[in-house]
């Protein structure tokens, strides 16, 4: 009995390498795809994606647990892996099917890589401005940095420590190792209103005079939700105080820990780019006699390794650098006539994986059909080692 035969006896492997399990997963994926697509009309793209495709489970009709897309795809991945491990008959006549199997595995793997590793955000710059950060569309973070009295709002370089705020739970503690204090979540709301009036707790530090937060229902459009929370800061020397952060504040709250002054703000998450980007010029052309833009493009300079190179970004001409792609997204022109350009920033380490998976699967199908055609007169033989 060889190794594969031994594995086939294993109940766990036998259980997961079932064809029926694969069929169940494919049926569920079909239902989820249809359901999720239809639900986008009422629930919005973001919430539908989270609920039907990114979740492990969700409650259908409000009470019935239903497997989410991620759970189904994980089961399918394990199923295909087990089949490849113990049941696929690795012979030349099955080469097409073997390639198809690995193509499908690669599809699921690329889906996971893109789910976990893809970063989407935007970068807005006025003409002449330089920045090295992209801003997330929906994710929030608490950013803390040491206040620099020499720094001006015109030019600064800050070493920022941040924690993602989207999964904060009440009473959760976050240790800021480098800053030397502990942040405890006393109260966190993913959507809330801020009030300055009576009824708030006294002695809470806040940059805008907000004294209390009123939780609000989550909006379908995530950009309409403004998070806020009250956090307790505990220092190594026993100091303890509360700060209130609200997502719509533009000024950070300042506080002292020991002899150092820190500033903290709750804002959309920032991601550092491996380069600095300067907007040199924004150009907009309009259809004659109208205000409707015909085209708009940005002349930018990219700084890498202390060298600047210029690049024109337009609608179908993005800037690509390593795993980053910057697309022309939108623009604003303020009352002063200052032009700002907004670039969509996408970081996708696995951006070629879906293309490779498609090619591999397609190649497997072509080979399989060709071999079927060439050996049509022969009695077909099962590509699997055993039948259920």
């Amino acid at each position, binding site marked *: 009995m060889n190794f594969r035969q031994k594995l086939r006896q294993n109940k766990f492997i036998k259980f997961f390498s079932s064809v029926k*399990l694969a069929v169940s997963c494919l049926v569920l994926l079909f239902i989820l795809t249809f359901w999720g697509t239809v639900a986008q009309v009422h629930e919005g793209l973001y919430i539908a994606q989270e609920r039907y495709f990114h979740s*492990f489970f969700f409650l259908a009709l409000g009470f019935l647990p239903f497997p989410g897309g991620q759970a189904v795809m994980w089961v399918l991945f*394990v199923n295909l892996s087990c089949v490849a491990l113990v049941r696929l008959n690795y012979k030349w006549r099955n080469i097409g099917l073997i390639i198809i199997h690995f193509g499908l595995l690669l599809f699921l793997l690329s889906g996971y890589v893109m789910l976990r590793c893809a970063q989407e955000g935007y970068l807005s710059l*006025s003409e002449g401005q330089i920045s090295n950060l992209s801003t997330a569309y929906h994710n929030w973070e608490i950013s803390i940095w040491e206040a620099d009295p020499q720094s001006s709002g015109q030019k600064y370089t800050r070493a920022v420590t941040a924690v993602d705020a989207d*999964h904060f739970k009440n009473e959760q503690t976050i240790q800021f190792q480098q800053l030397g204090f502990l942040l405890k979540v006393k109260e966190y709301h993913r959507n809330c209103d801020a009030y300055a009036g009576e009824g708030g707790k006294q002695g809470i530090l806040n940059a805008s*005079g907000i004294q209390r937060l009123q939780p609000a229902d989550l909006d379908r459009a995530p950009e309409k939700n403004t998070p806020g929370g009250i956090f307790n800061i505990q220092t190594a020397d026993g100091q303890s105080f509360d700060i209130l952060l609200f997502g719509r504040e533009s000024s950070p709250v300042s506080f002292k820990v020991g002899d150092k002054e820190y500033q903290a703000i709750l804002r959309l998450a920032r991601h550092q780019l491996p380069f600095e980007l300067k907007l040199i010029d924004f150009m907009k052309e309009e259809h004659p006699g109208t205000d409707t833009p015909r085209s708009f493009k940005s002349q930018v300079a990219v700084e890498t390794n202390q060298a600047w190179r210029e690049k024109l970004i337009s609608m179908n001409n993005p800037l690509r650098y390593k795993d980053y792609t910057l697309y022309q997204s939108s623009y604003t022109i303020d009352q002063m006539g200052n032009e700002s350009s907004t670039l969509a920033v996408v970081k996708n380490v696995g951006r070629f994986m879906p293309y490779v998976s498609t090619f591999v699967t397609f190649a497997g199908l072509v080979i399989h059909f060709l071999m079927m055609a060439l050996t049509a007169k022969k009695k077909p033989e099962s590509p699997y080692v055993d039948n259920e």
Partner: protein
Amino acid sequence: MLSKFNFISLRFVCSTALLCAVGLGCERPIAERHYTEIFVDAEKKAMRRSNDFSRMPQDDIHAKIMSPDASDSQAMPQDDIHSKLMPQDEIHAGLKAQNMPGADMMGGMQDPALQQQINASADQTPLTWETPQEWIEKKGSGLRLATFSGTDPKAMVEVTIISLGGSAGGMIANVTRWMQQIQIDVPAKSDLENFISRQEKFSTTSDLPAQLIDFTQLQGNAGPDVPSMIAAIVERGDTQIFVKMTGSKQAVLQNRDRLKALAKSIKVKE
């Protein structure tokens, strides 16, 4: 058939539950991230602050701007071309008066430090008010909490509500700038203080002190169609709420009581 179905379902449920348990067990605690934030503001603005107007067109329109003597906004041509150079609203109130770095004739508005201060001064406290029946309320944008427009085509006015923290530049600076905006000659400081002291004071329904600044009083001989303004300033501790109505002299006079009623109805949402 049913037993087969149950068997398949059981397999799926068991396998999914197993993977979920593994997935949930792998949930990591929230970890801190570190990054360096670099920001440099526009060089163009620095150029303007240093009064380098070499890229400005060499024509009559820009002649005064390029003059080395152009040290205040009076040097700016008071025409349509330049009316949009600087936003004429409460957000920019008193910026020149505060003598901030970079708050010169053109560059001041673009200074990011100033912009930061302006943004910081915007008060986000939710307010409520009662819209006069003859006006249509539109959703606010930017720092405007709300915008209203009159429905009477013969007396069109635009009304805005903005709430700013701090002194927002101060009363004298605001009134001076508003006068310039509607092309009223700014009197000497003592006369200006006298004018302000004569303006109607009242209290809102929530007992906040307020004052109505009626510029039509300074336009006695002007025709009914000259641009004019009436503004109400409601003081709420460290915050000032500006309710500003612009339109022709005749239109703002017709809507004066509505503006006052709107200002009186402003309350903090509790």
